[in-house]
């Protein structure tokens, strides 16, 4: 894993964990984020806004899809692949 990916993944995990602290006790890179109801629609937007704040870039709108938010690892890879983020 590249250093950049590891750093972004850590940021994603931290932001998800802080957004739903009561649900993130066993959060890993592979935990389903949306399917099981971990993130509801408000939490998803809070994660997006907090990621933007920490990374200092706009979250690419075309990535606001269920498949992008499957897990923290998938989200990290999608953000890296989009090029404009992180």
């Amino acid at each position, binding site marked *: 894993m590249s250093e950049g990916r590891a750093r972004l993944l850590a940021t994603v995990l931290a932001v998800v964990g802080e957004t*739903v602290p009561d*649900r993130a006790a066993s959060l890993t890179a592979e935990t389903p984020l949306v399917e099981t109801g971990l993130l*509801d*629609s*408000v939490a998803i*937007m809070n994660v997006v806004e907090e990621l933007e704040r920490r990374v200092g870039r706009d*979250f690419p709108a075309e990535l*606001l*899809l269920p498949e992008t938010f499957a897990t923290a690892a998938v989200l990290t890879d999608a953000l890296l692949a989009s090029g404009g983020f992180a």
Partner: protein
Amino acid sequence: MGITIHQRVLEQAERTPRAVALRGPGGAYTYAELAQRVRALAHGLAAALPPGARVAIHRPKSIDAIVDLLACLCAGCAYVPLDAASPMPRTRFVLEDSGADALVTDEHTAALWSQAPDALERLALVVMPDGHGPAHPRRRTHAALAEPAPATEAVRPVAAEALAFLLYTSGSTGTPKGVAITHGNASAFVEWALEAFDVGPGDTVAVHAPLHFDLPVFDLYVSLGRGATVCPADEATLKFPEAFLRWLRSERVSVLYAVPSALLALLKRSTVAKGGLGDLRLLLYAGEEFPVPRLRELRALLRPDARVFNLYGPVETNVVTCCEVGPAELALARVPIGTAVSQARLVLVDEARAVIAPERTGVEGELLVSGPSVSPGYWRRDDLTAAAREVVNVAGESLRCHRTGDFAAWGPGGRLDFRGRRDGMVKSRGYRIDLGEIESVLADAPGVAELAAVGVPHPERTTEVVAFVVARDGSARDEVPLLARCRERLPPYMVPAHVYWRDALPHTTTGKVDRVQLVAWAQEGARR
């Protein structure tokens, strides 16, 4: 009352049997299929239940859930849509408070009740197959529901005063309250909407809001009463603005009735600016104020002949004002909520309960509403019903009104301008939230000495709910158990986005919690 809202749909099915009535993930029903399925379930319900029985519907929004709603009405029963996203204790409260005699659900949702099997003991239970299976239930607890129904079974007649549905909304005392909507109420709104909007064959109408909301009354009964195709959007799609955009485009939605929060998210958080929404020709919004600059942006993404309307009306009154948003409105600082619809009578009263005449523009007062679409009251809550009633004298005429709790002012041309509320109710993402309900959940939590929940203006979601909490001496300041407690008892939209711990809350000179100061604290954004 003229024709009932469900009879109108059945008559449309006679006129356009082959047109698509409902389309959702995995399937579609023509008007003929819709009518056949509705009659089949209605026949079973009518054989098992007395007229006027309440039937709870607990399943995700889908074309089949819509069949269930219509079937209840055809059976002469009233439906109670249960929020599929709410935690079970709250859902159970609604089921029991409504005095439901039957529960219609699907196999997946039915499994949730295994936590509380005693709640279903005295109910007729109808478990439909998941997805779009056969029209007949797989399991049912009442023998009459097992009978295969003749396809032409007549519907049971209903009176205008008969209950059509109960819509539960947040209550200040810690539990939700059911708003009773009669057939006369629903029909008054639908008749107005049919006049006002030319929805019809060729239109694809989205069902954006959850079915326990009042917005789908338009989506379902106006559209299906006129031969349009109705497409319920599933909740997974609605969580993601880009997914919602793709869905709007792939379904070629031509009519959308949504809350401003959802439209703001679409503007800011999807790629709608590339390509716009060329199929949308009628956009209705309600429930919140839509910031005019954003509304201008959205208008520019619609086709030139598309029409946009701002509707207003709490669930207790149905829609009672309407304002078309044209170039003139887009030049105002705020779009008015408009003029009265559907024979509604609107009255503004000042603090002394004196009527504010429409000539006195700009003077704020509480908005009272009277008319055929106004609910007779809260279900089995005569205390709340009485508190929300007010009789006013307007030009010698005595009007029995519903107190909306909303403040407004008359503007030029008899148009009303919305001026917010003076109590603990806020709108967040179009959901009506009584902050008292959140506070009552947190007040009993261990370690909490004092607390307050406030609605904080948010650029994307209109309002975000946060809570400020003071810990008892020596108690840990941990937000995790408090959030978990909220999630166990409240629907997701009522769970505070943040819990802030403070050593003390600010108070006004009269000793009340200073909510203005709390909102300012939240806007400073300091987490802890």
